[in-house]
């Protein structure tokens, strides 16, 4: 009879339940979408912050001699990169070696950076490039040239750049023009091997730059592990990036987080109010059942079961819709879908059931009400 009654309660008064179900579903939808967002926002934002470029530098230690423009101390390329690879950390977005030498393009001295060109777009996503990052033909030596160099040397895409260093020369094809708004605008980027050959420094690099995803804490932890693997070199986060990023990330998280808490509270209140109103509508029924000899425990259990089932159903449907909503929000805001957290499901449903039950709590108060009072319509 309990289940029969429950079924009838849910079916029989569907008209009045519409408001409650609407509130429950939309509440659960907003809650699950925002929870999903809140859980994922840090990952998303740290990813966005990779726009700032490299945030970790490996360099020869401080004991290096300072010697003007010439690369003072050098590192072993394979040693440094073997260490990076051995950590196998998926947080590493990009890692590129750099070897700077000052070559001559005709009469003009120009800083040439030997690096892995294919890592640059990942390492420095903010750089604007005209042309391509990687060459279209196998048999050329490609170079990417800063826009100031292009202007000074009157170059254009596809033109050939003749570079010389201590008697050795190389001929590179200009495949891309970079606008970075910094020192890089005055530099030429080429394949590392070619620069090493010109400089007569095979296997040597001046420094390595890494773009590592994560919070300031993650990054310093990663730096510490990398430093342990490379005891002879210095590994340090670039403070301009990590410090500001950490601070901004915290603020944005706090901001979004507090907004989410506000809305969660509001949504919960809304559901609570609706469920309370629904429960109060059952006053008459409670009074009648009491008059017929139903014990309060039994009656309250019945109506609690009703709102509990409503809460679970609303939570379930709402969670599904909410996950769709967070997908849409992720697409709209970040251009990529937010990754789904399945723990949202039970969390949302549990929250909705709890809120719905809390909303029905006033029914317990009816236990103290004399049925006669309810019949008198007070």
């Amino acid at each position, binding site marked *: 009879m309990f289940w029969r009654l429950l079924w009838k309660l849910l079916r029989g008064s569907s008209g009045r339940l519409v408001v409650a179900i609407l509130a429950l579903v939309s509440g659960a939808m907003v809650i699950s979408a925002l929870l999903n967002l809140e859980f994922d926002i840090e990952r998303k934002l740290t990813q*966005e912050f990779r*726009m700032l470029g490299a945030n970790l530098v490996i360099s020869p230690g401080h004991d290096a001699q300072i010697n003007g423009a010439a690369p003072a101390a050098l590192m072993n390329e394979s040693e440094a990169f073997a260490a990076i690879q051995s950590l196998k950390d998926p947080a590493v977005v990009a890692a590129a070696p750099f070897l700077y030498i000052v070559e001559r393009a005709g009469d*003009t001295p120009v*800083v040439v950076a030997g690096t892995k060109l294919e890592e640059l777009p990942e390492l420095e996503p903010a750089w604007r490039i005209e042309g391509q990052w990687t060459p279209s033909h196998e048999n050329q030596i490609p170079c990417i040239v800063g826009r*100031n160099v292009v202007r000074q040397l009157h170059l254009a895409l596809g033109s050939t750049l003749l570079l010389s260093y201590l008697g050795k020369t190389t001929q590179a094809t200009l495949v891309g023009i970079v606008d970075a708004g910094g020192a890089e605008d*005055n530099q030429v980027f080429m394949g590392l091997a070619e620069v090493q050959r010109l400089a007569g420094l095979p296997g040597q690099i001046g420094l390595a730059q890494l773009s590592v995803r994560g919070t300031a804490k993650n990054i310093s932890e990663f730096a510490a592990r990398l430093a342990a693997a490379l005891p002879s070199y210095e590994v340090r986060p670039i403070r301009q990036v990590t410090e500001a990023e950490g601070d901004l990330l915290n603020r944005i998280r706090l901001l*979004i987080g507090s907004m989410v808490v506000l809305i969660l509270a*509001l949504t919960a209140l*809304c559901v609570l109010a609706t469920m309370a109103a629904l429960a109060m509508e059952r006053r008459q029924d409670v009074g009648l059942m009491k008059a017929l000899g139903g014990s309060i425990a039994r009656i309250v259990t019945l109506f609690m079961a009703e709102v509990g089932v409503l809460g679970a159903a609303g939570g379930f449907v709402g969670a599904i819709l909410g996950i769709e909503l967070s997908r849409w929000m992720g697409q709209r805001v*970040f251009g990529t879908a937010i990754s789904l957290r399945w723990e949202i499901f039970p969390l949302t449903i549990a929250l909705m059931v709890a809120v719905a039950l809390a909303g029905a709590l006033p029914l317990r108060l009816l236990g103290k009400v004399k049925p006669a009072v309810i019949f008198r319509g007070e």
Partner: protein
Amino acid sequence: MFGRLVRESFVRNPRRKVLVAAALVVGMAVATSTLTIALEVGDRLAREFRSLGANLLVTPQADTLPIEIGGVDYRPVNEGAYLSETDLGKLKTIFWRHNILGFTPFLDVPATIQQSENSDPILAMIVGTWYAQNVSVPDGTSFKTGLSVTHPWWKVQGRWFHDDANECVIGSALAATMPGVTAGKVIYVTSRSPGDSAQGQPGTTQAIALKVVGIVSTDDAEDKALLVPLAIAQKLSGHPGQFRQLFVSALTKPADTFSERDPLKMTPTEYDRWFCSPYISSISFQIKTVLPGTDVRTIRRVADTEGRILSRVGTLLWIVTLAALGAAALAVAATSATTVLERRAEIGVMKALGATNSLIAGIFLAEQLLLAVAGGAIGFVVGAALARSLGASVFGTPASPRLILFPVILGIAAIVAFVGSLIPLRRASHFNPAPILRGE
């Protein structure tokens, strides 16, 4: 009689009104605070993003190619072009002068450093700059700017130099190679300007004694350099009143497709709109106008990261605000709907007495509107307080309440309460009074 009915309904059963009023207050409070934050967040976050440092770089237009690695220019002092220090005050006269938060000129000079008059000279870069310099603005005011604003992440052990003293701050990497150089020690800096060999002029030698007041760590090439007040670097290089690079930190609006357009191809209206928006492109255009002969470049890393995150957080907040508005609307609508449902009996009686549907609706709606105004007003005050403390906890300074939101919130409250009771009232208009009166 109408007013009396509405008044009576308030006085007779205040408990029912409490629920609707509470929903209104809470809903409108959340709406107010999220709207306030959403309206402020652009400015606030943009300011926070200035901790990333400068977003604009000004260099001489007719320059030779700088030999620049990691921010330090290794060119000899006689090569390339310079900019004049005297024009810098004009930066605070452009249309968006209040958005120019700071600027710092740089002048790099290769020089030798000696710990004492006759110790071994060490070759190093001397970086001349401002830490906190007072710049006089043509409008008669003065403006304090320098590294303190544009490079907040440069950390000094000891203290920074005074811009008008013979002091210096030594880069941490350089300091490591010069044992014995600590704060308080005096070092000797000598530069040789090579002169003009073509005209046979001999080079001149400048030597200056500087007191080390701190060790700076920048995590960049400056760690290997000696930072000195700009005036000293100018003396060393023989270029008084001049500098090579200027870093500008400006508050900007995230770039969009409109801001990326070529201003020369805009219609006059579009041009005005572009000029009067704090886009980074319009600010750099305005800087170029007051500093002729310069090249103003956007530091992409900083500007693009800022623009991207600002616009994303902005969109996100608006979505969240919409969700808050939606939830608030739902809360209010649901509670008003239930109060109407609860009063079916009353409606039945009124209808039995011959009241028209519109009269009943009028009474209920008048009541809901009164509640909406009261609840909306209280909600606005509560929400403004909430936004204040939220702003204080997130940005350190409280978000100021926006009075413009007051009528908006009242309007939303009224509409929501209205719509919320309209639907059940429509249903009520179909009520047959008889079964209601019988209590079914």
